[in-house]
């Protein structure tokens, strides 16, 4: 599935890229404009993505990628969901809360005990907030509280 989806997605992206590139001023060979190089890149991208998609669909379905068992797949999915959730909630709940929730949830689902997960969550969010926001002056969002 993955072996076919990735080149197909890239092919579509290359098509979108070309249509946008064509709308930029192309210029002439002696005075290349902002769209000159992107059009060349777009043509190259479409050709290689087309060949890659074709060869992926010619092979047996499912060739290339190794299928995962349910448990490892669940661990990866949960980690990815946690990453996305972190980015979504960070501006609203602030860094300390988001980091605590992220570490605790991921650690718990990767197989840690609740106590380890909670303790690591508290320590790592406090520690990293102290290091980055206090010592290095990074304006990490602190949330409504």
């Amino acid at each position: 599935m993955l072996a076919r989806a990735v080149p197909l997605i890239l092919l579509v992206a290359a098509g979108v890229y070309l249509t946008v590139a064509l709308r930029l001023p192309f210029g002439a060979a002696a005075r290349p404009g902002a769209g000159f190089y992107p059009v060349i890149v777009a043509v190259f991208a479409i050709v290689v993505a087309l060949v890659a998609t074709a060869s992926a669909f010619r092979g047996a379905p499912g060739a290339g990628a190794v299928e995962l068992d349910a448990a490892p797949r669940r661990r990866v999915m949960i980690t990815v969901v946690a990453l996305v959730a972190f980015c979504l909630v960070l501006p609203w709940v602030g860094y300390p809360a988001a980091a605590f929730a992220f570490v605790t949830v991921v650690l718990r689902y990767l197989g840690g005990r609740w106590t380890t997960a909670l303790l690591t969550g508290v320590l790592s969010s406090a520690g990293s907030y102290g290091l980055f926001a206090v010592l290095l002056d990074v304006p990490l969002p602190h949330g409504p509280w």
Partner: protein
Amino acid sequence: MGPLEGLAYGFSIALLPGNLFACFIGVLVGTIVGVLPGIGPVGAMALLLPSTFAMHPATALIMLAGIYYGAMYGGSTTSILVNVPGEAGSVVTLLDGYQMTRKGRAGAALTISAVGSFFAGTVGVVGIMLAAGWLADVAIQFGPPEYFAITLGGILLLSRLSGGSILNAFVMVALGLALGTVGMDSISALRRFTFGSVQLAQGIELVPVIMGVYGVAEVLLLAEEGIAKTQIASVKLRELLPTPEEWRRSTMPIARGSVVGFLTGLVPGPAAVLSTFISYTVEKKMSKTPEKFGTGMIEGVAGPEAANNGATAGAMVPLLSLGIPFSPATAILLGALVVHGLQPGPLMISQRPEVFWGFVASMYIGNLMLLILNLPLVGVFVTVLRLPQHVLATLVLLLCLVGAFSLSNSFLDLWVLVIFGVFGYALRKLRVDPSPMVVALVLGPMMEKTLRQALFLTRGSVVDLVARPLSATILVLAAAALFAPLLVRLVRGRGFAKPTP
């Protein structure tokens, strides 16, 4: 400044307490990430890049490069003791290294690999001194057409050498080049591919992309395994000494590996990894008993371990003298210099000697530190392998998130990190190497700028552009490397038509 004078000046810079400390932190972090499987030097360099913004450029370069070559020392420890490569440059080492451990010669393998790395590191530094100076003198005459040829030739070569199919490498290159065009056009100041986003006008930052494909993606691979226990062989201090016989057999492989490594480092491509395979093949061919390779031959450890260190040194040459990075690791070093307004290139050696010579001298010092860190203290580093992997994985993810945000306090960088993390994970599953994409992302804007300037110079004539002696040579060489294997196959197929066994 001549090489000796320059080196003496360099030591006066590198021995400043702040630089010495930066060097120590760099090689220490490098050894640790080298020992830990799954977390490589490139991800670690990207993670620590923001912390160098406040440093002097020489200090930043010293620390980040220390991580890079330090990881080559650390990686072999895990290969030899655990039979898992600590990082990609140590894959070959485990073939014979782990077999030596099974025969009770782990200590000798560790010592030979550290001494070999040290020797190669030293040879590499001499190589940088000579080659970078010479190349910089030549490169002063380069104009946009030559730089265009070098970047284009470099990308083509890299696609050939990155392992796996050329088609996949080209797809990665196309993606990297396209990503490199996002943002403000450097010549006309027109916004391209930003879809109205103000943040995207700055372009897609390299560092969150690298943190994603080398940091987050590798942690996602670790997450598959959940809790994993590692079996670690223990080594006593007095077992570290190789026998005279082992020393004798290692001398030539180390010498050859150093040279092979340095030369491989000069060529665009995943030099550190590639050089170990080349060195292993060379040693096997030179050996009187090639059939014994894979059963614990010290030559199979000595050569490749020297080679990967030589390669990290060689890779510095195009970066320092041309300002062109051919690998993700040197791309980060370039990033660290550009942040400080420094443009590496042929003029940097003469205009900012403290950066170039300070860095070169620090590599001597760093290699000496690594020899001490990795031999008597090897046991200490092995204990990091006992850290629970799921805790480590989670903390690395958190560091990536906060690190990406702190680059420029932007939520966009955070999304770039996560998107490229997931994408990098998918690539790993498909066994596609993401490094052509990363290098193309860095070289793309250089290539576009030099192409447009060159076309302006030649009044739009592509023939004039490629017919200049140097650009023509570079492009012909790159094309030859790209198509040679194909031609060889064609000629062989027709000439011999050997029946396949």
